[in-house]
């Protein structure tokens, strides 16, 4: 117990040091590139850091706490489902790839919204995009804060408010002082912790369970369905499991927190390295984490709350100091997701709304002041929300992932690769994506047995194409007057 707290404490100290160390690079940059440095790390990320920051941002509380908990309940079928995420390791960077990097530099884009603004030149597209980022990511972030605080609470025995306070202060300090580069660097440290931590825990779990063979026969003895691809109750259908290839696989291309990273790297060499490292690391972590969940079942039968599987199995099979180190992994995952989201929401407010439409002639000093202030105010606001999370917040968070994908995937991907795509198509796609997702989520859940995100993504594709085609003649992009 004490060793666990000490390990976590050391982890937080390291994170602080990195934050302050990277803040020096913020002070060294020329005044006029502050925005680029703060929100994008000066487009200087190397391959290893790029891969790690993408994975750490993406692998949130759900993959480290929730995922293994479900794998514990469902068996190998859930590990199969989680392996649909391997595709993100290479797909996102290959699809956005060089084109996105070149275009983003051309438009001097610092955020996804900058890219959309440069590509479509439409105020409506920018405001709609900023609005959905602020709403969805804010909720996603608040829910992660709740998760982070709960984890500290369960590890240290502090009460929830104190735990939340510790969590909030640690996140805010280094996001505010360090900006994107600090976030990317700490993501890297956290990614390495996740990688090593899950490997150690998997090995210890296999040993504690008496080897893979023994664990498997224990599972078969309890319920043979646990070793099938169909889940404990046999209700994980191939269609449902396959639809996760869209939700957590290929459609991740549309998530703003992921796309912003695809414009932050130094060179195509860095991107090539990140492709390889990213695929290896994401597959390795996902496979390990979820297998741990399944393997924990014969060792610690009868855990009722899925979220407790990871902390309990770590403390069961590892010596305390090592358990503390390994449990820093989910902590790391939550923090690195939160800090990226915080930065992204703050960039949406400062850059995309304030600088674009409220005060375009703001001086650099003003922008700097606004960036720090907005980040801090958002942090405090999230803290207050997380103290007593409203029901709406929980719903929005569940909704956020698919909602953002349905909103952004086609305006981004077809904006890059289809020259006839225009602002009308983009607007239609965003509106149809969000609206159809809400309707399907509320009235027709699991339509035809697939995840709710599948149809909105198809419908928003149709909307993008129709919207662009129908406005081709009267609104040629070359003669179209923006604004």
């Amino acid at each position, binding site marked *: 117990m004490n060793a666990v707290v000490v390990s976590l404490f050391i982890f937080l100290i390291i994170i602080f040091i990195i934050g302050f160390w990277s803040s020096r690079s913020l002070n060294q940059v020329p005044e006029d590139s502050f*925005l680029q440095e703060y929100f994008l790390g000066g487009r*200087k990320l190397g391959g290893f850091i790029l891969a790690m920051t993408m994975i750490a941002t993406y692998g949130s509380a759900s993959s480290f706490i929730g995922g293994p908990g479900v794998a514990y309940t469902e068996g190998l079928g859930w590990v199969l489902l989680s392996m649909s995420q*391997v595709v993100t390791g290479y797909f996102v960077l290959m699809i956005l790839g060089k084109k996105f990097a070149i275009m983003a530099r051309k438009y001097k884009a610092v955020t996804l919204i900058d890219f959309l603004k440069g590509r479509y030149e439409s105020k409506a597209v920018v405001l709609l995009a900023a609005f959905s980022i602020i709403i969805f990511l804010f909720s996603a972030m608040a829910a992660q804060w709740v998760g982070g605080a709960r984890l500290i609470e369960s590890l240290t025995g502090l009460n929830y408010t104190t735990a939340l306070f510790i969590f909030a202060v640690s996140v805010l300090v280094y996001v505010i002082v360090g900006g994107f580069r600090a976030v990317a660097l700490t993501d890297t440290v956290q990614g390495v912790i996740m990688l090593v931590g899950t490997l150690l825990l998997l090995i210890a779990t296999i040993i504690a369970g008496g080897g*893979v063979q023994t664990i498997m026969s224990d599972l078969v003895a309890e319920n043979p369905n646990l070793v099938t691809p169909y889940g404990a109750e046999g209700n994980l259908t191939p269609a449902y499991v396959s639809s996760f290839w869209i939700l957590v696989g290929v459609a991740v291309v549309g998530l703003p927190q992921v796309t912003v990273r695809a414009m932050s790297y130094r060179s195509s060499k860095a991107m090539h390295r990140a492709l390889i490292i990213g*695929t290896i690391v994401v597959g*390795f972590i996902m496979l390990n984490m979820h297998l741990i969940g399944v393997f924990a079942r014969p060792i610690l039968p009868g855990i009722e709350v899925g979220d407790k599987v990871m902390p309990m199995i770590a403390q069961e099979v590892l010596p305390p100091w090592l358990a503390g180190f390994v449990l820093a992994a989910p902590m790391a995952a939550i923090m690195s997701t939160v800090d990226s989201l915080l930065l992204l929401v703050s960039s949406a407010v400062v850059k995309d709304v304030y600088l674009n439409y409220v005060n375009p002639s703001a001086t650099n000093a003003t922008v700097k002041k606004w960036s720090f202030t907005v980040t801090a105010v958002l942090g405090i606001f999230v803290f207050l929300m997380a103290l007593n999370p409203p029901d709406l917040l929980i719903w929005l968070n569940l909704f956020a992932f698919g909602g953002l994908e349905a909103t952004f995937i086609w305006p981004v991907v077809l904006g890059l690769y289809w020259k006839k795509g225009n602002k009308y198509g983009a607007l239609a796609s965003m509106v149809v994506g969000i609206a159809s997702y809400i309707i399907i989520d509320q009235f027709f859940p699991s339509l035809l047995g697939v995840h709710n995100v599948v149809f909105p993504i198809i419908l928003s594709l149709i909307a993008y194409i129709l919207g662009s085609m129908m406005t081709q003649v009267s609104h040629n*992009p070359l003669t179209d007057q*923006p604004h």
Partner: protein
Amino acid sequence: MEQVGQMPCPLVKEEGEGVKWVRKELRGMDGRFKIANREALIGVALALFNFGWWFFFAYGLGDASPEDYSYVFGFPAWFFYSCIVGFLVMVALVIIVVRWWFVEVPFDEEESS
């Protein structure tokens, strides 16, 4: 397109500049985009292959009743081939594709920070 010295946010001052740029580039005036397009298609092909492998082994071999499963290294065969071997195959393919087919292109032409 001299944008040196402007603020680093995407100030597209002249009307339609961004759109013109897209048009120009997409007409094939920038060879880098041919490379980018090809690599995006490779990405799609890899993802389709990845999905096919994953689906075929999982539901091809896993469809039997659990008593009839064969096991490899302690894992049910469907799981071993679909998730473990499938992952290793994808890593190998990504390495091969990136090393041999992906081309390094410069990103910066106007701004060098």
